[in-house]
């Protein structure tokens, strides 16, 4: 429950980051140019981020104050969601140029989640680690702490040992709330290394915390490697049931790492 609340809180934080700005704050600080630009963004209210009206409102804000990161970031979202990496990156580079601390976490997270740009995400994340004194924050959808993203990028570029180190280091922080898929990712890293008992431990932790088809499936693979047929079969069956009940790794925009499919389970069960 605590984790669910934390996750919801991050979602709210993310929505907040995209919500309307308090224009009077700029006026209060005597920044009239930004105040005018901020008023221009208010014309986007009520328009879906993909629409012409939304984009034009933020274009006008950029014309008034081209050094404000927020309008570039706001415009970039629809390009991201439509897979237009060229325009998305141009806009996000501007946003990061003018407000690095606010928008570098977002650019790093999206490079990983939407474009599997591991090299680019690692560059962003290592810079972010430096400027935030190792407190990088979370991905835009709140699914991952950015240390977990860094670890997954290391894994994808063949640096699994470093990936494990980064995750374990994050887990050491008592104030850290475990992410909804964290144990699965660390478990899979151990599984791929052949460290089956460690992997099973983590999948069991995930089971207690947020039981999904993935942790059962990978646990079955670990038992299979240990030649524990009965445990393997039992977990494969559980994985299939969870999957069919929609209890699985899911993201509406892209396919997360270590996600499995129904046919993957069925093949392992010998049903395909």
């Amino acid at each position, binding site marked *: 429950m605590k984790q669910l609340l934390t996750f919801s809180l991050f979602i709210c934080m993310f929505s907040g980051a995209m919500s309307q700005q308090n224009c009077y704050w700029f006026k209060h600080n005597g920044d009239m140019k930004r105040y005018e630009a901020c008023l221009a963004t208010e014309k986007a209210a009520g328009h*879906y981020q*993909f629409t012409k009206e939304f984009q034009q409102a933020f274009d006008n804000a950029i014309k008034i104050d081209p050094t404000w990161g927020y309008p570039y970031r706001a415009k970039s979202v629809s*390009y991201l969601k439509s897979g237009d990496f060229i325009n998305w990156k141009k806009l996000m580079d501007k946003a990061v140029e003018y407000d690095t601390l606010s928008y570098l976490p977002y650019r790093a997270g999206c490079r990983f989640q939407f474009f*599997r740009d591991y090299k680019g995400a690692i560059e962003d994340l290592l810079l972010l680690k430096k400027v935030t004194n190792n407190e990088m924050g979370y991905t835009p959808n709140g699914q991952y702490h950015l240390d977990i993203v860094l670890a997954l990028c290391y894994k994808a570029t063949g640096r699994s040992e470093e990936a494990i180190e980064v995750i374990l280091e994050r887990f050491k922080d008592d104030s850290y709330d475990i992410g909804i898929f964290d144990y699965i990712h660390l478990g899979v890293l151990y599984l791929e290394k052949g460290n089956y008992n460690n992997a099973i431990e983590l999948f069991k932790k995930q089971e207690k915390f947020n039981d999904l088809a993935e942790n059962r499936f990978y646990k079955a693979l670990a038992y299979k490697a240990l030649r524990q047929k009965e445990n393997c079969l039992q977990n494969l069956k559980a994985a299939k049931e969870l999957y069919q009940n929609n209890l699985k790794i899911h*993201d*509406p*925009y892209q396919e997360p790492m270590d996600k499995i*499919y129904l046919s993957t389970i069925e093949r392992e069960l010998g049903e395909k």
Partner: protein
Amino acid sequence: MKSIELIYSMKTNLILLFCISILFSCNVEKEKQQEYLRMVGDIEFDPKLDDPEFKLCYNDSAVFQYFSFSSLETFVGEKEAIDDYFKEKYKPVDINESGWIRIRFIVNCKGETGRFRMIESDEDYKERPFNKKISSQLMALTKSLEGWQGFENKEHPLDYYQYLVFKISNGAIEQILP
């Protein structure tokens, strides 16, 4: 005589300069004014590019985005089937070209696809074409890919925009997104 020629030449240069500056300012103005369709990523019918047989079930002003329909889970065999299809059919090209290719298209309510468009970039997200052996092959395979689901709601049938992004590494497919 020479001074008259000089004045004449200066005058001609000034006129030329004036014309060039007008032309240049027009171009700058054109660049500044970004034109939008109804939505970012919309694809209008182009008779030179598009199959006239492909029809939307409803209309252009009501084409949804793919994520309104729960991602690639709705594809027959899920995303794994898409990965398997390209793994089997795509022939890697031995060339030092890496980056991303996006193919965006519409899926109509019958699960048919049309209006395919492509963008291409290098690893730094800079727009540039890939070797045709890569891009044309991916376009042809995407056009032949079957398994998209059609949808309808209570009021009318639904059409939606879908895309596939191919992360290319030295002419081979490294990853398919979303």
